[in-house]
């Protein structure tokens, strides 16, 4: 957990000082995509080799649908209150 926060924060500080050098920032974005693809490939690899997860994939999907429904409806409803009471708009 400490490592996660450390690398994230270190990157942000580094990025802030490099923000005028757009070449480096663009390169970092490209490598980020590569690293994400590699990590998801590795995640897929261990998932594919894990019988328990493969067999419960449908269940995981159903749970994900439920959690997403809660997340979306909760945030939409609260944002509606902000829309009406903070932004002073009504309906559409």
């Amino acid at each position, binding site marked *: 957990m400490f490592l996660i926060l450390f690398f994230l924060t270190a990157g942000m500080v580094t990025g802030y000082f490099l923000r005028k050098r757009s070449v480096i920032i663009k390169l970092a974005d490209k490598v980020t995509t590569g690293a994400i693809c590699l990590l998801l490939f590795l995640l897929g690899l261990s998932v594919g080799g894990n019988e328990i997860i493969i067999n419960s994939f449908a269940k995981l999907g159903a749970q*994900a649908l439920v959690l997403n429904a809660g997340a979306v409806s909760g945030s939409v409803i609260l944002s509606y209150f902000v829309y009406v009471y903070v932004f002073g708009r009504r309906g559409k």
Partner: protein
Amino acid sequence: MRVSFCIVFFFSAGILCGFYSLVPSAMNNSTLSLYALNLLLFLVGIGIGGNNTVWEMIKRNNAKILMVPVSIIFGTLLGSALLSFWLKEITLRDSLAVVSGFGYYSLSSIIITRLEGEALGVLALLSNIFREISTLLLTPLLVKYFGRLAPIASGGATSMDTTLPVIIRFTGKEYGIISIFSGIVLTLVAPFLITFILA
């Protein structure tokens, strides 16, 4: 959208290779993913820190606009907490960690895998991909019934990039700026919130 495709492709390719044992098991070790994750976190940080829009937005933000991402954070946590009582097999803590990705599925699933294991990582990947897909599909309806902040709320962290075009199309340019701001704040908050919830 291109990046989303690449992510789904690599994840599926990984599952197939793992399932049919196509890759030498040496590749399937956690040291490699630990190094890759640390590198990724550092790079994501550079991307955020080096993004001029981020700092301009934060400098000129006003309290009113800040209410948008704040309400999205609390709405997301509250809504999923309520529904998670229905899911007996997942603890409240795990549910909150999953939805704290706010649609940022690549990073959230990877961090959660590291901290809690693959099963919850996959749940986070699916749940957060669904968040992006449902925003792409539901934006017209959300705007109609819940106002123009609704698709921004639904999009979460994706409202700054992948779902931004559809949000602007149905809410207008003025809300596009709020959408980018809210997406930036949620992208920043997601990795920290996930780590704290699972700590």
